[in-house]
């Protein structure tokens, strides 16, 4: 390989080669040269020490200061765009609004409650107003299904039921159209 870059031992073996052979030699598979060459042995000892120290470095899980998450998230929240607002039904004068994003959270959660399915993108679009002043909305929900999901369309029917019920009962919107799009699969436990 072209990666030796001049790091050759006095015995003409490349350091990279010694590195690649570390485990083999450790398992007793050393060739004649490796058994006897002092340069190779010295290089192996250095590389083993480096490998041990590297493992310590990997294991060292120094945590960020506890307030870092909070600082990042307040900066993020300061930039949140709420998106379009939709109206909720109300018997009081005036208008009760909720953001499409807030609606999306509730609908995604409803979809998640069906096993083997994860809601990803949720587009909420207002298409009109109902009699009680509530918005009529169309929703497009993009889903990933578990690679082990064998229920297929049955799972999707359950998603449809739960999302429609959540829209009505937990948000107070009327869903006039619900499109479900499955565009990915995920490994279970991922």
């Amino acid at each position, binding site marked *: 390989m072209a990666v030796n*870059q001049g790091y050759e031992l006095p015995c003409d073996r490349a350091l990279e080669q010694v590195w690649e052979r570390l485990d083999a030699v450790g398992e007793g598979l050393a060739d004649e040269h490796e058994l006897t060459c002092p340069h190779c042995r010295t290089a192996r000892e*250095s590389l083993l020490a480096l490998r041990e*120290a590297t493992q*310590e470095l*990997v294991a060292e899980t120094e945590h960020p*200061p506890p307030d870092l998450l909070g600082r990042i998230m307040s*900066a993020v929240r300061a930039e*949140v765009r709420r998106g379009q607002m939709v109206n909720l039904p109300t018997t009081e004068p005036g208008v009760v609004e909720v953001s499409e994003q807030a609606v999306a959270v509730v609908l995604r959660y409803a979809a998640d409650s069906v096993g083997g399915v994860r809601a990803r993108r949720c587009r909420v679009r207002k298409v009109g107003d109902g009699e009680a002043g509530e918005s009529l909305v169309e929703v497009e929900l993009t889903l990933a299904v578990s690679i082990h999901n064998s229920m297929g369309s049955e799972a999707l029917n359950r998603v449809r039921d739960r999302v429609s019920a959540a829209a009505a009962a937990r948000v107070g919107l009327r869903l006039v159209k619900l499109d479900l799009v499955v565009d990915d699969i995920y*490994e279970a436990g991922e």
Partner: protein
Amino acid sequence: MTTTTSAESGTPLDDATLVSRAREGDVRAYEQLVLRYQGPMFRLATRMLVNRGDAEDVVQEVFLTAWRRLAQLTENAAFVGWLYRTTTNRCLNVIRARRPQADVDLDLAESPRTDAQPAIAVEVSVQLAALNDALQELTPEQRACWLLREVHGRSYEEIGDVVGTSGTAVRGRIARARAQLAEVMRPWR
């Protein structure tokens, strides 16, 4: 709350799901991503910069920029790679910005390895201390390549994208870094 674990078993949601939710403005999904990746990014930045304060600043900027650019991220699964790339590049920029100061007066310039580093103070292993010292002797680009590969397990191709070169060239750089590091790991010298 509702968006951070799947309802089926309480297992954490996969990155792609969290990224696509965050892209739509779901702050809690994004918070989960920050929680998941602030540790590795912080450790990478700390080892690149050897200064916790600078590392914190870098990590904060990286996650805020990531939030702003989520819409441009076409592939949900590319999020982590993007984080590594941005963190590395910001660290390299910070180091470049420091250099003139060190060149002016080496004695008066603030040493990057001061006692304000609890991370280094708590080290117990002599080997690890030697490695940390040796890492600072590498060029920043070499150090980045070596850390990304040997500590964070990124692929040669991905590291090549980060530092603007090929996977083969990265392999060579890491081999040189390894030779240099192994040199100081000889206890009898």
